[in-house]
């Protein structure tokens, strides 16, 4: 059988057990009743003991959401979602709401994170990532399990540096004014169908505030895990880098394998003030569904950064390998003069996955610059679309953008699409766009094999060459993880 034919066969055989994070944790959970209503929103808000303004904010968003329609412009297809058939709140009973120490956390949950390789004990974190030659490197973790944060590490050490890193539900109590000042200022409650839904029902997520002039002493990370059946995850993350500060933030996510689709509709807001920099990296590995497209996460996410201050910088790096459907456009509003935005993306689709992802770079200030490097890899019978907008408003004199979108196809039954939108109202804006599409053909594989490489080595060589520019942008430990993940995602993509 010809190699490409085999490829297709192999991809058909891709089995759920290639997803290595698909186990389920059995814990006692407390859930809100099924369905969505004002009462459910009041339930969630009461569970978190929220101030009145927060409840009102949620209810306003809900009223608005009822008048909205799900977007239909993306190149993804799925049956209508029955929003009344979902749970909007699920929390482990033991230590569910703001545990004081790890002893209060359900041991099953601790085991889960151990299995996922996410150490929650600070001494383990130190041991785990100690580099042979250098300083031990620390990563603070906020672990979100279904609708609640179950643990946050290195809080004390961060506090000493003035950094606030805690679940957003906790920040609402401890720093209500900061939350109130920034929440919804980047992604307003009216923004889009999924963001508005999130505003009404968001459960937990991380809150980060880096004070003026502080360089965050360690990487911060949030690890999201959806465990409960039929439960949506609606996390909300808010990161503020005040003047002259710097933070690097990492996000990871996985879910058990289930036959039903699960909804994940998150909102992430970033604010960078004068001279501040935020580097946000994601390795997205939600359960992608099986070979026939059964099950998997619907990942409908709104991520946006506001370069509010002069000389501020926001950079998004994403490695997207999971989810049945991805609808996600991490964007930058380049408001401050001389601010810059970056988007580095590797999006891999295999089996029946559908990806519609990209970015928006909105140039408002003078001399703002942006850079977009997108690498899409499609295999199996998947569809992979890059959708990006670069716009310059009237005052954005000297705006510059460089966009490079490359697609790589493996086999004949997948699709890659590039949809760039460019809008400029300023004649002095300079936008450059490059795009390529290449294919790992049977002849190419034969050529490499004739030189001694096995088929897997040949594919890995081409894929690694293809994604290199983006992998370089990830923090080192993450890059290693991402590389492993890429090869797992493409396992079985060739015969």
């Amino acid at each position, binding site marked *: *059988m*010809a*190699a490409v034919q085999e490829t297709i066969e192999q991809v058909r055989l891709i089995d759920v057990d290639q997803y290595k994070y698909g186990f389920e944790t059995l814990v006692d959970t407390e859930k809100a009743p099924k369905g969505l209503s004002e009462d459910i929103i009041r339930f969630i808000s009461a569970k978190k003991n929220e101030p009145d303004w927060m409840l009102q904010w949620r209810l306003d968003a809900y009223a608005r959401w009822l008048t909205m329609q799900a977007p239909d412009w993306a190149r993804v297809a799925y049956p209508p979602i029955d929003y009344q058939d979902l749970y909007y709140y699920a929390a482990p009973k033991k230590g569910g709401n703001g545990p004081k120490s790890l002893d209060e956390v359900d041991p099953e949950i601790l085991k889960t994170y151990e299995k996922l390789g996410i150490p929650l004990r600070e001494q383990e974190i130190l041991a785990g990532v100690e580099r042979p030659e250098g300083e031990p490197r620390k990563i603070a973790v906020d672990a979100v399990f279904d609708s609640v944060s179950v643990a946050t590490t290195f809080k004390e050490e961060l506090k000493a540096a003035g950094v606030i890193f805690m679940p957003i539900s906790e920040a609402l109590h401890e720093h209500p004014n900061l939350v109130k000042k920034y929440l919804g200022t980047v992604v307003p409650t009216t923004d889009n169908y999924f963001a508005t839904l999130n505003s009404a029902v968001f459960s937990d997520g991380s809150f980060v505030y880096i004070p003026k002039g502080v360089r965050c002493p360690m990487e911060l990370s949030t690890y999201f895990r959806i465990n409960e059946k039929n439960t949506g995850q609606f996390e909300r993350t808010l990161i503020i880098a005040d003047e002259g500060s710097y933070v690097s933030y990492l996000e990871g996510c996985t879910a058990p394998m289930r036959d039903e689709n699960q909804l994940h509709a998150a909102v992430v807001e970033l604010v960078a003030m004068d001279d501040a920099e935020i580097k946000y990296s994601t390795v997205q590995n939600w359960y992608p569904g099986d070979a026939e497209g059964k099950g998997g996460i619907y990942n409908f996410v709104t991520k946006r950064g506001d370069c509010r201050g002069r000389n501020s910088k926001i950079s998004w790096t994403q490695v997207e390998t999971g989810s049945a459907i991805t609808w996600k456009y991490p964007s930058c509003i380049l408001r401050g003069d001389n601010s810059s935005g970056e988007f580095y993306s590797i999006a891999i689709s295999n089996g029946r996955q559908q990806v519609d992802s990209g970015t928006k770079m909105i140039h408002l200030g003078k001399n703002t610059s942006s850079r977009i490097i997108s690498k899409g890899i499609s295999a199996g019978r998947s569809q992979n679309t890059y959708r990006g907008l670069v716009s310059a408003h009237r005052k954005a004199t000297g705006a510059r953008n460089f966009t490079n979108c*490359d697609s*790589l196809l493996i086999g004949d039954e997948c699709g890659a699409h590039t949809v760039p939108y460019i809008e400029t109202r300023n004649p002095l804006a300079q936008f450059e766009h490059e795009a*390529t599409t*290449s294919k790992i*053909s*049977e*002849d*190419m594989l*034969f*050529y*490499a*094999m*004739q*030189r*001694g*490489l*096995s*088929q897997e*080595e040949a594919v890995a*060589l*081409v894929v690694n*060459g*293809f994604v*290199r520019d983006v992998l370089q942008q990830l923090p080192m430990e993450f890059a290693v993880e991402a590389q492993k993940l890429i090869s797992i995602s493409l396992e079985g993509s060739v015969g």
Partner: protein
Amino acid sequence: MTPLLEIEDLHAEIEGGRKILDGLSLTVNPGEVHAIMGPNGAGKSTLSYVLSGKPGYVITGGSIRLAGVELSELTPDARAALGLFLAFQYPLEIPGVSTMAFLHAAVNAQKKKRGEQEMTSPELLKRVREIGKSLDITAEMLRRPLNVGFSGGEKKRNETLQMLLLEPKLCVLDETDSGLDIDALKVVSAGVNALRAPERSMVVITHYQRLLDYIVPDVVHVLAAGRIVHTGGKELALELEATGYAQFQNEAA
């Protein structure tokens, strides 16, 4: 003496298509250079693909042995590790992979399969530079993605570079002269000649006699309608140049 290459009564067809090789036999001893000439469509490239195990070609009869090892059931990379090298008529482009990275991967993949010590980057770089110099291959070419945007001549020089680096036991050259001007032809031929050695053999496939002025064969075969129909010394090439292949096509039919 064990022949280096021994093809016996080989029958092969294109998957789901027609029969191309029809009872081809060929024996090449160590150190010998054999030329295979023949009209377009005779099955010369097919022979090179069947030897190297290209997917889509099916052996329906006969055998191929390299230094006594039967090749028919082996994957292309296993055959390569045994010392078979095919210089392609149309080398493939591999975007995103620098020529140097490809060379490194290829050399070490073969060494690993043979259980030999792998080459370090500095060792490899030194060796590639040495060979590159004799082939007019610049450092800039080595940085470029493999064959992407290379001219015809650059691609053929790059094939020769790989051949010299990998030091195969059997080199199969398919129409290496096509797309080459006379200067490039001289450079490439000099490279190929530098590889001639008592333990190494070559099968040089060409439609034209010109290449054989530079790579002088010990034996010349005529391939027509899927088998070897005539064999002679190097003077046969000149004869064919004068008379053409028509007589053999009739003979085969």
